[in-house]
């Protein structure tokens, strides 16, 4: 677990690192994250040369490849602005594993410096922006799935629910075993598909049994997994990235 983090005052600008899954599959979620930040009066810098944090290679054991990809991202944030990432998984990679990945290399110092500026989006909205939300949506029962990386690697079990709690018309329901993994785990879902399937099956069942009409999450891997399972079951429960959900209900 990361040590207690001291948060900076709300900055004038931030960098936004969209992540590859958002880039390719959920670009609206990324844009909604940017809109939420801009609405707080923050200028959002989007380094055009960003690609992927390197986590897929890292967790697959391809260390050199991960390091090369990560090194390419390290140069994207030259000014001392915070780096906001709409994913606990990629955020955890950058905050926790970048310093490990570059330990003993020329880039060690820069990796630690960058890592120290990385914030997951909901974390940033709660602890730095002190975001206040006014709900304009219809009444709805929602379950939050906090990704394992956000929950354990970044210590952010509370920030997503804290934001949802501000939405007056939203009833946050808690699914059984909310802290349990949904079974995504990056390449785990492809290497151990049956085990992963058993896990996501339990997750969708728990969310449905909690009476949720929708689940929100701050990680697109979990969304792809849980949402894909719901969709295949032709369940009425939909998934939405928390950035889109917050933006949609408050704009």
């Amino acid at each position, binding site marked *: 677990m990361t040590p207690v983090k001291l948060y900076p005052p709300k900055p004038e600008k931030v960098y936004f690192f*969209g992540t*590859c899954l958002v*880039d*390719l*599959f*959920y*670009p609206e979620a*990324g*844009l909604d994250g*940017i*809109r939420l930040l*801009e*609405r707080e009066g923050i200028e959002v810098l*989007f380094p*055009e*040369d960003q*690609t*992927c944090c390197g986590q897929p*290679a890292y*967790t*697959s*054991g*391809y*260390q*050199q*490849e991960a390091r*090369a990809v990560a*090194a*390419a991202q390290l140069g994207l944030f030259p000014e001392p602005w915070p780096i906001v990432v709409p994913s606990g998984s990629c955020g955890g990679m950058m905050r926790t594993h970048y310093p*490990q990945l570059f330990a003993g290399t020329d880039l060690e110092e820069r990796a630690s410096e960058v890592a120290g500026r990385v914030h997951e989006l909901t974390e940033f909205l709660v602890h730095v922006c002190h975001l206040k939300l006014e709900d304009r949506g219809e009444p709805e029962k929602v379950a939050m799935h906090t990704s*394992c*990386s956000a929950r*354990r*690697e970044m210590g952010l079990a509370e920030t997503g629910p804290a934001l949802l709690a501000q939405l007056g018309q939203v009833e946050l329901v808690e699914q059984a075993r909310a802290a*349990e*993994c949904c079974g995504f*785990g*990056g*390449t*785990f*879902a*492809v*290497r*151990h*598909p*049956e*085990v*992963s*399937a*058993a*896990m*996501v*099956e339990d997750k969708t069942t728990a969310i449905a049994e909690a009476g949720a009409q929708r689940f929100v999450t701050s990680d697109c891997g979990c969304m*792809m*997994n849980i949402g*894909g*399972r719901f*969709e*295949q079951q032709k369940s009425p429960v939909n998934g939405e990235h928390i950035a889109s959900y917050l933006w949609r209900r408050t*704009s």
Partner: protein
Amino acid sequence: MSAIQTPGVQTYSPREFHRQAHDALGNPQIRANFRKAMDGLMTKRRDSFGDWELETLRELGANIRLRALAKLPDLLEQLEANCEANGIKVHWAEDGEQACRIVREICESHDARSVIKGKSMVSEEMHLNAHLEEAGIEALESDLGEYLVQLNEQTPSHIIMPAIHLNTDEISEIMHDKTGTERTRDVDYMTAAARQQLRERFMAADVGVSGVNFAVAETGTLCLVENEGNGRMTTTVPPVHVAVTGIEKVVEHLRDVPPLYALLTRSATGQHVTTYFNMISSPRKEGEHDGPKEVHLVLVDSGRSRIYQDDELLDTLRCIRCGACMNHCPVYTRVGGHTYGTTYPGPIGSILSPHLMGLDETKDLPTASSLCGACGEVCPVKIPIPDLLVRLRRESVGEGRGNVPGAGVKRTRKEVAAWKGFQWLATHPSAWRAGTSVAGKLKALMPAKLGPWTDYRTAPKPAGTTLHALVKRHQANKSHQPNSKSHEEER
């Protein structure tokens, strides 16, 4: 060391992880038994640490284990010297085979025909029962769970609760079949029956074999943690007691024991304490009326000194074998202990077994984790299990330090090419943008197959446009109308 192969015993192999997982997942009884048990254990653990400064205690536990490992060779020598001074004979074994031979020779020197065993995972690891049986020596497990598993010709499915894969009805059936008890759901009846059956065996046993939870260098003391009393029986009733343990189980001081014991019982079963904490420092002394006349300690290496060489892998040896990592593992909970095909299942097994058996045997274990981090979060001595799983994945694909047996076993030209391709794209931003803007291109980069994904879920659909493109448009809009739409809407 090979996969678990005890004659007549149902065998599982880590090579067959996928098939065994498939079978377990398809067995509703197994699924239900593990789910129920793990749910209970997680709740009990949480409750048991209620009024403790858990993080401070874990910090101390980790620190004690690190200190012991830092001084390991000195402490082993100190332990040996103090044990010998107390009258405990100390033996050293390079591997399980050698350790088995030492135990067998001790048995043979007493013409022993019957061995009674307390719970010992190291003896499971070295397949001691099979070895003794080949020499015509019967080895009977006395921990109730181990006894039931042995009756059922199986191996343990959990390091603390060996029979956790069986429910009451199944156990009743096993006891009825093998020992002639009535079929019943009465747990007290079955427990009393086992007590009766095993008491005869304790009295008849020539040698008692136990494990060790902590070996204290300072005093030459062997500590055993248990609830049943079979550990005390095993180490007190037969005339000879042989304790087998891994070389990493040593701690420096007696005062190091209380914090580790507090962590162990709470992490393992959510108990604030176990019924017995049994500390043995010598055989029966002149004038004493019971206890074994001989006590032996067998220190087993079996790959541990190789793990010891590496700063990162070293953390594996901190383990105090509480099983909390498996109790909290969503994979273990789904597939159960036998699926792993190793003595130590679950997360700790996946970071330990590759060193004991080689990555070629165990290559599917380090990947059998979603890296959810639950194991690392509950580990009482703060072993960074997820990081160690990643390290072993690195070793498997030949990008580690090469100091784990079987390193590089999973390296294939195809996969390397795929990751090199990923690296090239992700380090060439304009190519990346060009690639990602053409929806679906990235599919080619998905490792192995995407096939199984869609057996259970719909395929992820590329959005057609990318965030890069959306941001570009968004920024262009904003620069055309300084009071952007979003800002207007907010007011």
